[in-house]
């Protein structure tokens, strides 16, 4: 395969360095808006939809990357767009189900949802799985960045008499240092604003490559005619080749990936938590999926299409055997002038940085919420003030970010063995997402889904997935839709269907037998040695998991052991965890959204439609979190005392950056004036004499 080195000129490097410094300065300006850990992680639930929609572009584009889609565009053509255009099927579930739940329940992380919906032990298991998923995602990001920058560098260099070979891992470590420093001092507000800027730049840079490429080829007509018909099809061949086929990618990305991205990608979910309301979240999500994803598909894949057309027309310029993972950089270098190439590469690497910093920020949020706080609560009884506590958590979050950055670098090692980043990402998705996807999805949309069922999904589902890895034939082959068996990387994508199936099977079987389980547990509790009996059974189930993990028996025996383990895990879960359908589903499933809204407000919801009004602010000495409007203004907003209000700087281009949520107090008689406290002014960063808008939230 044709590898490239030392692409670009010194002008390109200058442009790249200047771009990075500018982006970092831009991001650090917004770190002043991090007053608490809530601001650091969630941006304070205040932003308008367009700001969130654009900042999601940078995260989405970065995570799916110019590198891997250009590689597939070069190998397979327009079907590289498949993964960007198969997300709509789960939009109803998201905008009417999950989005209101995450906002109204005020959860700070996915594992916290698992605790509220199920039990603390489920939260623990979910934290483990989610951290693995997030660290793996960070690893994919680092690998992609390394592969993007490597072709720009010489194979080796000498400095101060010392000789260095430039390796992918060495480069990844340097990149990780830069990313770690940036995110540690930025926080969510900085990430949102940096991503907003980069969202625009990315779209521009990607389109620039497309139009410069078309110009290089000689126009759209020549480009279209140069490509074979099979390259122009938007969906890949149904089931072959194993490295890129429709049916595998449908299950791996369209089903597991879409649910994973919308329901458990903490980076994305934190963006939605930063929107000012559920309606703004819906606007951001639908705008992004309907318009920005198809544009992003062109932006990230077109270098591969252009590369293919050039390789057909001028094989001496781009040989057909060029390494697909290098094609974006190679094409950008050929079609751009010095400086322009540097700009495009800066935009690409900065986008990848956006993805990684979003993920690292999200991973640190999970650590603080699901490891640090519970552990501290358990270890120390010392009571600190809220401010002291917050300062300590902010420091812990920064240290955690550094540690997860290191773990992300280590995760690059296994992914490096795949032929392209696309395959590595596909395998990662199909392997790590199914248990959590099934757990969240059934938890949100099936009220009867029990705590024992989700624990069984996480433990026995994972055990059956491990068996699938050891015995792809016959276990996954049954689901393969005729996809050829590749002994090197068996069933990279369609493995997701098997994994989803076994997790759903375990979850459903456990749920439908819940009455029988209860009877059995009630009977066990009447036996004299039930505590020792259950400890023994739990210990045995751990032993069975180890036997499966290390493949210590033949397949039929391992399947039998899995079935026994299922019974034992379900019994242990029912015995040790207290779970009641009534208390653990109230406001936490799609069947109780109205209740969730009421719980969010703390009293009955006021759904009357009101106007958005403009007001000037005056300060009022008070310790209570109340805002005071005139009677007439309250009537215009259709608001009553005790309702929730959103107050925002009227300058639209700020996108809600200077805003605050509060509660209506008793009205006064001065129309156009709102009385607010110093705390509101500090939180909203309001400027004297600048007009504000006010609206009733609920």
């Amino acid at each position, binding site marked *: 395969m044709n590898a490239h080195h030392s692409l670009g000129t010194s002008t390109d490097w200058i442009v790249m360095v200047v771009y990075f410094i500018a982006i970092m300065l831009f991001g650090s300006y917004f770190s002043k808006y991090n007053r608490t850990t809530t601001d650091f992680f969630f941006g304070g639930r205040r932003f308008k939809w367009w700001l969130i929609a654009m900042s999601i572009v940078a995260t989405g584009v970065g995570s799916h990357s110019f590198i891997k889609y250009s590689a597939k565009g070069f190998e397979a053509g327009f079907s590289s767009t498949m993964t960007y255009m198969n997300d709509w099927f789960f939009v109803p579930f998201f905008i009417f189900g999950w989005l209101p739940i995450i906002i109204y329940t005020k959860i700070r992380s996915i594992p916290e949802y698992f605790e509220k919906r199920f039990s603390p032990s489920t939260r623990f298991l979910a934290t483990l799985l989610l951290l693995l998923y997030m660290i793996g995602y960070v690893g994919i990001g680092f690998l992609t960045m390394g592969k993007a920058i490597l072709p720009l560098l010489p194979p080796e260099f000498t400095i101060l008499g010392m000789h260095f070979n430039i390796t992918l891992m060495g480069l990844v470590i340097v990149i990780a240092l830069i990313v770690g420093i940036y995110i540690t001092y930025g926080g969510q507000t900085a990430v949102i604003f940096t991503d907003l800027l980069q969202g625009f730049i990315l779209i521009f840079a990607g389109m620039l490559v497309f139009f410069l490429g078309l110009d290089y080829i000689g126009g759209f007509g020549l480009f279209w005619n140069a490509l074979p018909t099979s390259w122009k*099809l*938007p969906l890949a061949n*149904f089931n072959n080749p194993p490295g890129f086929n429709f049916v595998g990618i449908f299950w791996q990305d369209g*089903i597991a990936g879409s649910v994973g991205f919308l329901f458990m990608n903490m980076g994305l979910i934190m963006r939605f938590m930063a929107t000012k309301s559920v*309606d703004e979240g819906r606007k951001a999500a639908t705008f992004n999926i*309907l318009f920005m994803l198809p544009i992003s598909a062109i932006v990230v894949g077109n270098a591969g299409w252009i590369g293919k057309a050039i390789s057909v027309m001028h094989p001496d310029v781009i040989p057909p055997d060029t390494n697909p993972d290098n094609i974006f950089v190679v094409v950008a270098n050929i079609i751009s002038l010095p400086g322009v190439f540097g700009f495009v590469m800066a935009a690409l690497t900065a986008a990848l940085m956006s993805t990684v910093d979003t993920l690292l920020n999200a991973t640190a949020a999970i650590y603080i919420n699901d490891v640090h706080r519970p552990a501290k609560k358990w270890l120390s009884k010392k009571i600190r003030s809220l401010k002291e506590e917050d300062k300590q958590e902010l420091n812990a979050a920064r240290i955690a970010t550094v540690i997860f950055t290191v773990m992300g670098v280590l995760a690059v090692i296994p992914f490096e063995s795949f032929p392209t980043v696309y395959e590595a990402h596909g395998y990662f998705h199909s392997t790590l997402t199914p248990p959590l996807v099934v757990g969240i999805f059934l938890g949100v949309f099936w009220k009867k889904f029990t705590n024992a069922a989700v624990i069984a999904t996480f433990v026995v589902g994972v055990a059956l997935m491990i068996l699938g890895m050891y015995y792809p034939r016959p276990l996954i082959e049954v689901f393969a839709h005729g996809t050829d068996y590749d002994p090197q990387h068996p069933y990279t994508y369609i493995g997701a269907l098997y994994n989803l199936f076994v997790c759903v099977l375990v979850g459903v079987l456990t749920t439908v037998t819940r009455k029988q389980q209860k009877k059995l547990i009630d009977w066990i509790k009447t036996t004299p040695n039930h505590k020792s009996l259950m400890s023994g059974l739990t210990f045995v189930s751990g032993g069975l998991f180890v036997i499966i993990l290390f493949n210590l028996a033949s397949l039929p025996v391992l399947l039998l052991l899995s079935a026994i383990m299922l019974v034992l895990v379900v019994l242990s879960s029912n015995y040790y965890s207290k779970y009641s359908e009534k208390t653990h589903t109230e406001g936490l499933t799609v069947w109780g959204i109205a209740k969730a809204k009421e719980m969010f407000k703390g009293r009955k919801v006021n759904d009357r439609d009101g106007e958005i009004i403009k007001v000037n602010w005056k300060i009022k000495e008070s310790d209570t979190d109340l805002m005071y409007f005139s009677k007439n203004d309250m009537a215009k907003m259709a608001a009553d005392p005790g309702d929730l209000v959103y107050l925002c700087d009227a300058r639209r281009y700020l996108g809600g950056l200077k805003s605050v949520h509060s509660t209506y107090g008793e009205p006064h008689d001065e129309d156009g004036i709102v009385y607010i406290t110093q705390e509101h002014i500090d939180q909203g960063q309001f400027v004297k004499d600048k007009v504000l808008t006010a609206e009733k939230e609920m």
Partner: protein
Amino acid sequence: MPSFENTWLPFIYLYGVGGIFFVSGLIIIKKSKAVNFEKKRHRYWWKITYFGFFYYMAIHALLILAALYL
């Protein structure tokens, strides 16, 4: 001319199997009363969900036709 497995089979599978998930979502949302048709905004978002499905279906169909006949 590419085979059926290259052209319309993936399209049918995408909107057939994907459509089952999509319709299941609509049914669950409606039955659970997560959507309240008395609210104007909810009616708007409900229509948008339908629009999105057919919007993507149309894009894919047009792209296949363009690849085959243009």
